[in-house]
């Protein structure tokens, strides 16, 4: 599903956010991307859904070379990937139901269908009772769950989650991980960036560890 070959990413001249990263994540796999803060986890995810381009190297996602796809196809790539952003990236002017439905709105799905599916997605993260609330009226953990619901609403082939449990208590963390495993069992490849060692140990999945931009253990 994800094949990265000798990927480098330099934001500026002095430092290298990623250097010589070669990583393969198979279709249907569930794996963790770990490492201390600043290791390059977020950068790697950004390269996968083409928010950033690598300075060097190639990345193939779902058979598409994302380092070479034309601008016009980038939206198609992103629609096939569900992303839980570290900073949630919710639309402040819209209710959480509208936020989740927005992914379907840009696909010009009918508004009735949008609402129905958004409600189901919110229900799966236990927030359907707050669907008319605005993001800033919710706690960090609740916003995170909205972001998760949005990432999952369109049955993505790949789910990328950047510190998705950073704001959640242990119970909620386990609940979300169970949800991710369910999604994974339905065929979605899952890649979770986290520095929560306890959670990684508890789940016993494959771990890719980064340090200072390099892969240190597989």
């Amino acid at each position, binding site marked *: 599903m994800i094949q990265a070959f000798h990927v480098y990413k330099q934001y500026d001249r002095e430092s290298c956010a990623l250097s010589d990263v070669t990583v393969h994540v198979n279709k249907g796999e569930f794996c963790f991307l770990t490492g201390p803060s600043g290791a390059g986890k977020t950068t790697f995810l950004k390269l996968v*859904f083409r*928010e950033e381009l690598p300075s060097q190297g190639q990345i193939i996602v779902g058979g598409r070379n994302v380092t070479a796809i034309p*601008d*016009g196809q*980038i*939206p*198609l*790539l*992103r*629609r096939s990937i569900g*992303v839980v*952003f570290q900073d949630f*990236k*919710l*639309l*402040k*002017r819209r209710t959480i139901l509208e936020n989740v439905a*927005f*992914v379907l*709105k*840009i696909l*010009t799905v*009918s508004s009735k269908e949008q609402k129905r599916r958004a409600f189901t997605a919110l229900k799966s993260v236990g927030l359907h009772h707050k669907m008319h609330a605005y993001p800033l009226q919710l706690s960090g953990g609740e916003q995170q769950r909205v972001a998760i619901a*949005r990432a999952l609403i369109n049955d993505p082939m790949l789910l990328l989650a950047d510190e998705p449990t950073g704001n959640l208590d242990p119970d909620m963390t386990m609940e979300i991980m169970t949800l991710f495993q369910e999604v994974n069992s339905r065929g979605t490849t899952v890649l979770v960036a986290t520095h929560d060692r306890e959670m990684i140990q508890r789940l016993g999945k494959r771990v890719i560890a980064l340090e200072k931009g390099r892969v240190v253990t597989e």
Partner: protein
Amino acid sequence: MALLRALRYFVEEAFISLWRSRLIHAVSIGTIAVSLLVLGTFLTVASNLHAAVAEWSRKIQIVLYLEDGLEGRIRESLERRLAGDPAVAGVEHVTQEEALRRFRRLFPDLQRLPEDLGENPFPASLEVTVRADQDALANVDRLVVEYTQAPGVEQVQYDSLWIRRLNTAIQLVRWIGGFLGGILVIASVFTISNVIRLTAYTRQDELDIMRLVGATRAYVQGPFVVEGVIQGGLGGLAGVGLLWLAFRMLVGRALASSDLLGRAVVFLPIQLAAAIVIGGMVVGIVGSLVSLRRMPV
């Protein structure tokens, strides 16, 4: 259906944005309105002058004053030659008596003048009407040259010079109007593009989110283009409206009834007024596209 949903979304978002920053949009619409008002003013002046000239050109007359006591044979041959000329629409023979009658009709107060002079001072003439087409002025020149030396012709009088001057004036009005209008239209494009850049800037995080969840460029930018079209269209409507008000208040009273131009002064034809509004919309589209050019994917 999908296209309709997208369009509906664009329009909704555009109106939300227009309302949210209504002050800056009002300023922008005002700028466009004033620009188009200036352009419209020149268009009105030019189109009125143009219509007046067309009207006068239709009435261009060349008067061939005939020598006293000219033989009817020579006069008739002159008439035949003129009537056979493709540029001539009509020839009328005005006898000395007819000329005197006209004088008396025009100047009743001077009834007695001819008698005081002792004889009929008015020469007979041939009044030649020139066909009204594009070559009318050139034809007038040719006929004047041709007949000034013709046997039996005493003098040739014609009135095309000031029509020529007016034509030049129209060109000048058009040129100044086009130049000023062009500058103002470019200024409008910049105004709109800056306003849209500003509104896009205040919503940057929102636009980023849209991109990152897979919205196409067209979908992200659509609302801004619609916003530009609405701004430009409203500016155009306001400009035409202002022009109409100004026309009513200034021109309507002073000139409409007078015969200064040989015809009533009229407002812009509806097609031109519509063209101004549509022009405003085009300005809006161009302005929005200019500001969105550099948006990342």
